[in-house]
């Protein structure tokens, strides 16, 4: 066992992980005309609303996933193992289908001539405008990423030894207090990884906003895609947007990890 075995991979990473980021950084700091500096960064002010919308929608989706996912994970953790196994399997099953197909399915449910509106019409109720709204985009995010919230929280709650909660009960804590003082603090690492796994893809998506937002709810992902492959072709600006987005994501993860390590309690 020699560390030389990692050598091919070290070269691989230098070429396919580090070099691409360096190129993106280089493009971000230069312009078509050959200028060097923060010119592209200043151009970004036009897109501040898009940044805010992206962060806001991803934030709402993450909060909703947490509000739905935590209770679900907690309830699941109290079921018998066989129920747990089938529930987890049922939860993973949709995730194994491509997310484009899952998102596409929502289009036919939400659109103006869609299933919900047809149902409403047959009941003589006024139709709702659901597709191409921010609500539809958030729904798509929650639908696609909810299992990413439930699974890590469930895994970590399950690892909490029963002796811990029993000890708290023996010391006179009621069930609410046991949850607040023992189970919840111990489950925080799961919450943190769930939050990251929902927030990062939500903030960078362009497919969900295209399919369910109809291109009317421009997000950061759309912006980047437009600069690299779409109509607004500008590699320099696209690179700058990518760098800023990457920094936002990394800063978010960093803040959460710090917050997490303070709360973290070592499980035996």
């Amino acid at each position, binding site marked *: *066992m*020699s*560390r*030389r*075995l*990692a050598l*091919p*991979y070290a070269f*691989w990473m230098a070429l*396919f*992980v*580090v*070099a*691409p*980021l360096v*190129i*993106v950084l280089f493009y971000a700091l230069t312009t078509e005309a050959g200028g060097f500096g923060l010119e592209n960064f200043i151009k970004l002010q036009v897109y501040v609303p898009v940044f805010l919308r992206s962060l806001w929608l991803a934030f709402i989706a993450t909060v909703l996933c947490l509000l*739905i996912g935590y*209770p*679900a994970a907690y*309830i699941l953790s*109290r079921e018998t193992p066989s129920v747990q196994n089938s*529930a987890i399997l*049922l*939860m993973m099953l*949709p995730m*194994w*289908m*491509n*997310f*484009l*197909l*899952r*998102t*596409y*399915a929502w289009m*036919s*449910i939400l659109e103006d*001539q*869609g*299933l919900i509106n*047809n149902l409403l019409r047959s009941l003589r109720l006024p139709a709702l405008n659901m597709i191409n709204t921010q609500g539809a985009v958030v729904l798509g995010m929650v639908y696609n990423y*909810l299992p990413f919230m439930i699974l890590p929280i469930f895994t970590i709650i399950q690892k909490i030894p029963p002796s811990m909660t029993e000890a708290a009960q023996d010391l006179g804590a009621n069930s609410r207090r046991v949850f607040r003082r023992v189970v919840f603090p111990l489950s925080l690492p799961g919450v943190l990884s769930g939050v*990251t796994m929902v927030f*990062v*893809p939500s*903030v*960078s998506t362009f*497919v969900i906003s*295209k399919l369910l937002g109809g291109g009317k709810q421009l997000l950061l992902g759309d912006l980047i*895609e437009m600069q*690299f*492959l779409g109509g607004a072709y500008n590699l320099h600006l*696209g*690179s700058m947007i*990518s760098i800023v*987005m*990457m920094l936002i*994501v*990394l800063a978010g993860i960093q803040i959460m990890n710090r917050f997490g390590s303070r709360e973290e309690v070592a499980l035996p």
Partner: protein
Amino acid sequence: MTLTKNRNRRVSGAPRPARLGRLFTGLIFVFLYAPIFVMIVFSFNDAKSRTLWSGFTTRWYAELLEDTTILNSLYTTLSVAVLSALIATVVGTAAAIGIHVMRGPRRTVMLNLNNIPVVSPDIITGVSLRMLFVALLGFLAIFGLNFRLGFGTLLLSHITFCIPYVILSVLPKLSQMGKHIYEAALDLGATPRRALGRVVLPEILPGVISGALISFTLSIDDFLISYFTAGNTSQTLPMVVYAMTRKRLSPKINALSTLMFVSVLALLILINVFQARQDKKRRQGDTAKTRL
């Protein structure tokens, strides 16, 4: 009658929150499966409409199986997935062993670099790889070597985003193994290569296999990175699906979803049955041992 029933239940110790909780999780499953159910139903719909039912047909399935774009993309997807899983597993396992024996800053640097593709959003990985490939192809073109974005760049990107997951699943197995096994093999006269192949590799095999499986599924499922790195000569299935959703027409997409759902379901059931059987065997083995 109903009143006493309710009272009985509450007394007999089935606490209300449990039932409410089950209702809650049940609703989540309805939410998760409703769209899939709708797709399956409308894949048999005898009209182009995605929402109005007008009779049963299987013609979308027939059309799907004749669609050469879809079949070609399926072939591309599977070959990229198999090749990238294979290469990522070999490179990743070797790298994991190398990283495992590293100490100090070297190890930290390797692990941090390894984490970059894992934590960065897929779109960033896709975009940055695209920039690299465009630059590299431009460089090669100077020497008269004209390549375009295509299967090669697709494969390279898939390998790149798969290796980190192989490493992350092999490393824990290596630390579980304990270092004495390898040293014992050397003491007993095995060459380092033989010790690696006959002692270390069998020991970490579960991690290697799960790394390969993760790579395979990630590769099959990927859309974003392929979208930026494949160019227009080779298309993966998710890319074709994306193009289809943009046209908003064909019920073939429902048929495709249904087929995918059924095959995933079958695969999961198969794995579960297999695992249950293995568990049973192990348990029988254990009882046999205790009897002895």
